[in-house]
């Protein structure tokens, strides 16, 4: 086993990880560990854009943006964080432009902006053009641009290194990170990275669900690793289902399709969003649109042989306009469904898209150990983290913003912290836990296949924990997860080799998925109301009286919450500065 020493270790090389690396690399010795080549990260899949109140095409300001974010998140947004994000958005976009990001341009040569769901002028008066974009490849351009800058500044990457454990050491009664343990895919060796500060930027956990726009590799590793060490996960019940995934596949068709004028229709050809959100119709926030779609299908107005999807209609748009603004997503429709969007409406259905919750952090991206204390030296940014700027429902384009704003903050804070402290001593053999885990999996004599368990997990989550939830459905999910965890103990890893043993890693990832699915369901059980992405048919109303708070789930072998052993649920107050909760209407 090799030991490496760095001031700052960043886990994950998506948008958040690389944005942090750019800041931290200039200030301290930094290594970036990533299980994928950086340019393979799922930030590259983001399409629609990144919002900032640049006011390049029409009047706008960051205060409106803050309001939209808070309202979009159904008021469980920490408003201090939302305000920072909206304010720093402008510089975040300009920074990217200066790094070379090829944004689409206005006739005057400035960054062009377009409409996006939930973004409005003057506190909801009408839709506003706030999303800065590069065709429908904004995330691709962000990921490439950040990687280019990392190449320029010679950031040290460890590619295809899976971080499987965080080393926590007790110093003066506080737990502090001493480093991480990583598995090198190419050789099967374990490496210990000693670090003064550690940033987690491992992205989301969409693979908990079957229908998802997320990559196969988004298995919630960072959340799982941190949770194991007693650090809480915040607001995990809030999962965003994006309205327009390609039916049956989950591949995303960006909201930009509706921003550019696309509309949704049911089997009767009706533009049904006129009924659900009379003002902004198809551009209502995602949770509302997704639920409306699911409702149309439930009420028998779905299309197709099984009446299980609705249609995204672009046929009234000019083909040239589609080609200029939505080239990639229309190609997805052609490639994967064989549908020609110029002339035919595209079958779509909600797809699991984004986890609003995650590792709780403050506005400096420092990870919280509980409501009042932070973990010195541990940081998180991006989808893995919960600042919380997205509350119960993230607005489109706010995540690319989140990763840039808080990625940057994490990088600066982590480097400054590292420069002010000494290494925390590593324990005797820091890799023991991980090596035992892997050896256990490799030598296991079980019979259960990893893929089968994962499939069952994803299916139960899709059936029971999607856009409509009830106590009964969630209980079914919990029972299934429990059974699956039993089966997990009996799994077999077929590949016994050392090199590129992806079979082994899928087994490890499945463990994270099971853990996260359980936490999500626990949080959802606890929240007996409907808010944002979390909609309960047995409690259809938002309940500010009792649930205007964040949930914090801790791993605790001695506790039982909502009938689930091993999890302790607590709450955390929401930071409210300017905007009192109001009814969320569009």
């Amino acid at each position, binding site marked *: 086993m090799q030991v490496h020493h760095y001031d700052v270790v960043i886990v994950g090389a998506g948008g958040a990880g690389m944005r942090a690396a750019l800041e931290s690399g200039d200030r301290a010795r930094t290594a970036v560990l990533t299980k994928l080549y950086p340019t393979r990260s799922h930030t590259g899949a983001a399409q629609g854009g990144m919002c900032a109140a640049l006011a390049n095409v029409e009047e706008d300001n960051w205060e409106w943006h803050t309001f939209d974010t808070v309202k979009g998140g159904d008021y469980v947004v920490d408003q201090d964080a939302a305000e920072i994000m909206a304010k720093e958005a402008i510089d975040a976009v300009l920074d990217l432009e200066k790094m070379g990001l090829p944004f689409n341009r206005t006739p005057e040569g400035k960054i062009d902006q377009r409409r996006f769901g939930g973004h409005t002028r003057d506190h909801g008066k009408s839709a506003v053009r706030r999303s800065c974009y590069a065709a429908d490849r904004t995330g691709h351009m962000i990921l490439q641009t950040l990687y280019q800058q990392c190449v320029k500044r010679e950031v040290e990457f460890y*590619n295809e290194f899976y971080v499987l454990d965080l080393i926590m050491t007790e110093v003066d009664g506080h737990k502090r990170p001493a480093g991480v343990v990583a598995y090198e895919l190419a050789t099967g060796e374990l490496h210990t990275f000693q670090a003064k500060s550690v940033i987690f930027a491992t992205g989301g956990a969409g693979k908990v669900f079957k229908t998802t726009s997320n990559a196969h590799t988004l298995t919630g590793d960072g959340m799982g690793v941190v949770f194991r060490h007693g650090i809480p996960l915040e607001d995990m019940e809030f999962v965003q289902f994006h309205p327009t995934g390609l039916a049956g596949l989950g591949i995303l068709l960006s909201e930009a399709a509706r921003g550019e004028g696309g509309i949704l229709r049911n089997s009767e050809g009706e533009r049904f969003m006129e009924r659900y959100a009379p003002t902004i119709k198809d551009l209502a926030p995602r949770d509302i649109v997704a639920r409306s779609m699911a409702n149309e299908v439930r009420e028998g107005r779905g299309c197709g042989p099984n009446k299980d999807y609705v249609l995204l209609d672009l046929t009234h748009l000019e083909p040239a306009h589609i080609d200029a603004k939505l080239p990639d997503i229309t190609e997805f429709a052609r490639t994967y469904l064989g549908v020609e969007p110029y002339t035919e409406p595209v079958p779509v259905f909600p797809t699991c898209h984004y986890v609003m919750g995650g590792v709780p952090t403050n506005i400096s991206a420092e990870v919280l150990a509980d409501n009042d204390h932070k973990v010195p030296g541990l940081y998180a940014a991006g989808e893995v983290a919960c600042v919380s700027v997205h509350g119960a429902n993230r607005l489109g384009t706010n995540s690319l913003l989140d990763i840039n704003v808080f990625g940057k903050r994490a990088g600066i804070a982590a480097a400054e912290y590292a420069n002010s402290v000494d290494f925390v001593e590593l324990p005797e053999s820091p890799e023991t836990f991980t090596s035992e885990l892997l050896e256990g999996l490799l030598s296991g004599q079980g019979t259960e296949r990893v893929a089968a368990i994962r499939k069952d997990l994803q299916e139960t989550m899709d059936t029971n924990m999607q856009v409509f939830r009830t106590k009964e459905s969630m209980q079914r999910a919990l029972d299934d997860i429990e059974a699956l965890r039993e089966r997990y103990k009996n799994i077999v890893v077929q590949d016994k080799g050392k090199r590129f043993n992806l079979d082994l890693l899928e087994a490890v990832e499945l463990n994270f998925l099971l853990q996260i699915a359980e936490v999500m369901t626990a949080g959802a059980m606890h929240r007996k109301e409907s808010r944002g992405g979390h909609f309960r048919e047995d409690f259809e109303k938002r309940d500010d009286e009792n649930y205007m708070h964040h949930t914090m789930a801790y791993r605790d072998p001695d506790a039982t919450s909502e009938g689930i052993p091993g999890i302790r649920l607590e709450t955390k107050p929401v930071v409210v500065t300017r905007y009192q909760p109001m009814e969320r209407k569009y």
Partner: protein
Amino acid sequence: MSAPVIATPRSGYDRHKSTRNKFEMLAWVFMRLSGVVLVVLIFGHLYVNLMVGKGVHAIDFGFVAGKWANPFWQIWDLLMLWLAMLHGTNGIRTIINDYAERDTARLWLKGFLYLAAMIIVVLGTLVIFTFSPCPHGAAADLLPSICQAH
């Protein structure tokens, strides 16, 4: 940043030393320019030699000597010789660069190539210029008609 230097995860690959000069560019341009000119020269050559009159059957010492008595054909063939040889040699050079794996093999092959090319070009040039159409003591029926004047 004084911490110990750590080898990057996968050690780098050696690329050949870069050649920051214009040779490859000029060679590339030359291939194209000579190609265009060669089309004219070679098609002309083939046409006159194979298509006009009796084709190959007409070719003998007399035919060649008759052509080279004319400075126009002398220049034509000289140009063709030089351009074709340079073009071809450079073409083979790139092929050797592509497929010869070891440096020594490359060196030897290219050595042979350049030597052969030089011999051929020098020989060809000498032949075209020092050629006399009416050598002494040759049978008169082999000689071109212009020799009759002597």
